[in-house]
């Protein structure tokens, strides 16, 4: 159920994500991330999923928008392999995959993510993937891995 975030108050979320432009439109998403839950806003009148984090439903203009946990299943809509990062000082030795994962909840609902447990050359369009989590320091970050049984 959305709304039950335990002891993580706003101040704590601000402290956890100093580099993110937190606002009243996206703070529930980051509160969720901190707890290992990927929350996407959803219209509770017409049930449309809304991403990125926006306060009003673009389909029916309802303001009855609340974050909901997604199933974590989807497929790769498109992707690239980064051989060179934007920061020329940062060396990479193998390509870094970046993928737009289309979540199964709704056509066109996509979340940009790392792809793990899969060699970069094995990533393909439309490949089924599922949500997993990466621990980096104090943070949990979402990533997607090939669905068991799919190539990867």
């Amino acid at each position, binding site marked *: 159920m959305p709304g039950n975030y335990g002891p993580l108050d706003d101040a704590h979320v601000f402290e956890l994500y*100093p*580099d*993110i432009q937190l606002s009243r439109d996206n703070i529930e998403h980051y509160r969720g991330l901190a707890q290992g839950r990927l929350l996407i806003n959803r219209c509770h009148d017409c049930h449309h999923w809304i991403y990125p984090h926006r306060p009003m439903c673009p389909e029916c203009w309802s303001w009855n928008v609340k974050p909901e946990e997604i199933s974590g299943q989807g497929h790769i809509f*498109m*992707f*690239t392999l980064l051989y060179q990062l934007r920061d*020329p000082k940062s060396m990479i030795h193998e*390509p870094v995959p*970046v993928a*737009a994962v289309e979540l199964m909840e709704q056509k066109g609902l996509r979340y940009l993510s790392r792809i793990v447990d899969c060699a970069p050359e094995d990533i393909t369009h439309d490949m089924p993937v599922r949500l997993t989590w990466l621990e980096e320091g104090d943070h949990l970050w979402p990533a997607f891995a090939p669905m068991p049984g799919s190539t990867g």
Partner: protein
Amino acid sequence: MGLNRHMDTIAVIGVGSTPYARDLQSSHLALGLEAAVNAIRDAGIDKQQVDGICGSGMTPLAQGGAGFLSLQGSLGIDRVTWGLNSWLGSAFVHGAGAVAAGLCDTMLVVQTYQREISMSRSAAADPYRQKLQQFIEVGSDIGGGDFAKRWLHSGEPYAAWMRRYMHDYGVNKDAFAYMAMNNRSHGSRNPAAAMQVPITLDDYHNSRMIWEPMQMLDMDVPVDCAEAHIITTAERARDLDVKPVYIHAMSLGGTRIGEFYENSLGWTENSHWAAAQGLWDRSEIRLPDVDVFYPYDGYTIDAVGCVEAVGYCQPGECGEFLKSSWDDAGNILKLNGKTQVTTHGGGLALGRAGGANFYSEAVRQLRGNEGARQVEGAKTALINIGSFFHDPSAVMLRAD
């Protein structure tokens, strides 16, 4: 043409450029001023006739840059009745639109670009460029912290689109390769171009991989440069000692993609298609009448998208179309055996200017004074500048 209330009533009367080079040791403002002065002198007007300024950049009060406030103060222009900053395809259209709307009579549009620290190691070592980036990034969390925000204003989705395009249409990289070869061939004939050497198909395929499948030769060349344009009414233009180039029709475009680019709609629904439709709804000059064509090449896939969006071929057929349009004698594209493309070399050869140099080249070609590079009899030019996601333009220029 009910939608087009300004057909041929607005004209470009001045063009000014800076040199193009990897390191001009100049600020954005200095680059912008050099281009602005050149454009005002080219038009042969007094600077106090300028009463509208479209500056360079994404934010209205950008400091240290060539924004409209800094430009007006630096140029000593006493009064204006219009000012705004803009970029990519939009700047020219916003400027022309303000003249069309009667909010000012004589518009100065200035666009400046610099080789940024993210674009090369030597740029990253330049303390002035470091300082520039430090303050450009204030107020933005693009690329910071959350990986999911990585494609907010990013070039990487273009690379993903190249792959998706090839996958969906079952094609190879020919479309991208032929566009790159064309632009570099034209660059080799343009003394101002940063890249003077033409490339072969092998050069293209062997170039360094950046964001697979996008390679180095798919990307525009980061340089320091600026372009400026003077736009006024056709009526005023006739009193001046310049050959006016008329804005026949123009459009911008937008879709509901929003600012997170992974939300891209289908290939034929990106913003170039919206701008192209806007233009065809407003233009009496049609595609077969276009003499020279200027599709933006920030990445080769931009230009490929423009070729298809304006209707030269069906979606997915650009590779085949460009290959069949290749002119072996000139080592350039001649679309349908006729229309030359990006005759100055574009961003891939002349250098990265957010498309501003495409407007400049189109105007110069239609004036008919490009010397050795003049396309004979060029009377109409189609220009498509901008991103898949924002600020695309489609502009039809014509000369008498």
